[in-house]
């Protein structure tokens, strides 16, 4: 039995080497942590290179010493590094293919992503989100107000302009939480809006312009507001897909005045 350990001594690092590697791994990890400790450094492009290099060094230390590839048959090294290289190539190919050559999903996300607001306030301050979160173009909304203080009855109070349109859009798509939950998209179509493909009611793709022409002396805004509050008031004629009389106050009675204001603002944008 005494000869076996001796035979292994030549193929395994000594205890001193093992301890040295352990300390080395600790120190490198600590350095990595220190690199991203200053808030200004976090997520900066220049930190990527040193972090990747340091982790590659740790990686090599573990496989060559802890997994003693350095002391083992050279074939094992090639087998493992071969698989590693293939995995690395696959990773880079996919990232290159979907990241560099097809950037459209990324730009779409950048333009349409919404900021995340913590449900529990208090920590909201240091989770400021980047400008990329803000829906672009027409919406020049302020930072979303802390959710805790916003009264549910008048959500339109916080955002203005584009925010109102967005609120209207979300009501149009999902309905409202209290009272009536029927979403407008159940019955109405707006072309270009993937959610709005309902077939029971009139097509609202161009309601923003059409609404002003339906009734003499009634503005587009008044027409829409009245059509939501009292759906029976104006029944559009000559619209193919409409099922007259289906939409009643029972469907819309749960909407608050603020909801209707938002919906109207949204529908007026559909020109």
């Amino acid at each position: 039995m005494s000869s076996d350990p001796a035979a292994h001594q030549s193929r395994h690092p000594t205890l001193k080497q093992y301890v040295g590697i352990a300390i080395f791994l600790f120190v490198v990890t600590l350095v990595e942590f220190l690199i991203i400790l200053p808030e200004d450094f976090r997520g900066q492009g220049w930190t990527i290179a040193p972090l990747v290099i340091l982790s590659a060094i740790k990686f090599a230390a573990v496989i060559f010493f802890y997994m003693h590839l350095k002391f083992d048959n050279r074939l094992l090294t090639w087998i493992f590094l071969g698989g590693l290289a293939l995995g690395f190539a696959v990773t880079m190919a996919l990232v290159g293919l979907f990241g560099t050559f097809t950037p459209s999903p990324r730009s779409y996300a950048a333009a349409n992503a919404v900021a995340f607001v913590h449900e529990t306030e208090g920590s909201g301050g240091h989770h400021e989100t980047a400008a990329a979160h803000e829906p672009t173009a027409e919406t020049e909304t302020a930072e979303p107000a802390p959710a805790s203080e916003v009264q549910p009855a008048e959500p339109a109070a916080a955002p203005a302009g584009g925010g109102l349109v967005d609120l209207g859009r979300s009501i149009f798509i999902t309905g409202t939480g209290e009272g009536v939950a029927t979403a407008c998209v159940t019955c109405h179509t707006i072309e270009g809006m993937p959610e709005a493909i309902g077939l029971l009611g009139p097509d609202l793709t161009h309601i923003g312009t059409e609404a002003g022409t339906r009734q003499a002396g009634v503005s587009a805004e008044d027409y829409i507001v009245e059509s939501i509050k009292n759906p029976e008031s104006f029944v559009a004629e000559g619209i193919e897909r409409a099922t007259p009389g289906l939409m009643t106050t029972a469907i819309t009675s749960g909407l608050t005045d603020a909801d209707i204001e938002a919906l109207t603002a949204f529908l007026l944008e559909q020109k």
Partner: protein
Amino acid sequence: MAHHAETGHPTGHAPAVHAEEQTTTGINHRKLLMWVFLSSDCLFFGSLIATYMVYRGQSLVGPYPVDIIDVPITTISTFVLLCSSFAMVRALAATNEDNQGKIQFWLLMTAFLGAIFIGFQVYEFNLFRAEGLRIDTNLFGATFFTLTGFHGAHVTLGIVWLVALFFVARKGRLGPRTALDVEMAGLYWHFVDIVWIVIFTLLYLIGGFDTGPSATISIDPSVLGFL
């Protein structure tokens, strides 16, 4: 303690054959198999890492990484996993020295440290869920949970393996002649460790501060020049 050679090898192989059996490559078949498996596992994790990086910065709703990733806590669990790798090499060294007490101690220590790492992960996953990130919340959640979840599954399997070895060791069956049994578990364990080294760097140190979608590719391809 020296009777194990006669009473049977845990694998049921010819008991008295030493690791230096004759093969065309000169490498023990089981050891070769383990390295080939680890090599292929690089492709498995490479694909999951690629998926994370491709979908990085494409989530349409939060939480985004910066909203919930806690780098300091994960740095601690990374330290723990590194410690477990050290415990693992001590277990193998003890096996080669036929020090039965140390074999059991270091095997159990390795499994224990691995379990602490899993504990950190369970805590993290629960915290993320409470803060609104589920696997179906957004692309970040889907790719993050899939990658770290599969890594956690690897660690869990390793813990089961180590605990099983501990019970083998308690029967006095581990020693220089059966050191390969410990070495194979060690290779697997260290591999899980190096996978975490990569995940920790990419998902936490680099990707953990992502604020949300940006129009540019997140990993600068020029970085590859350094490798």
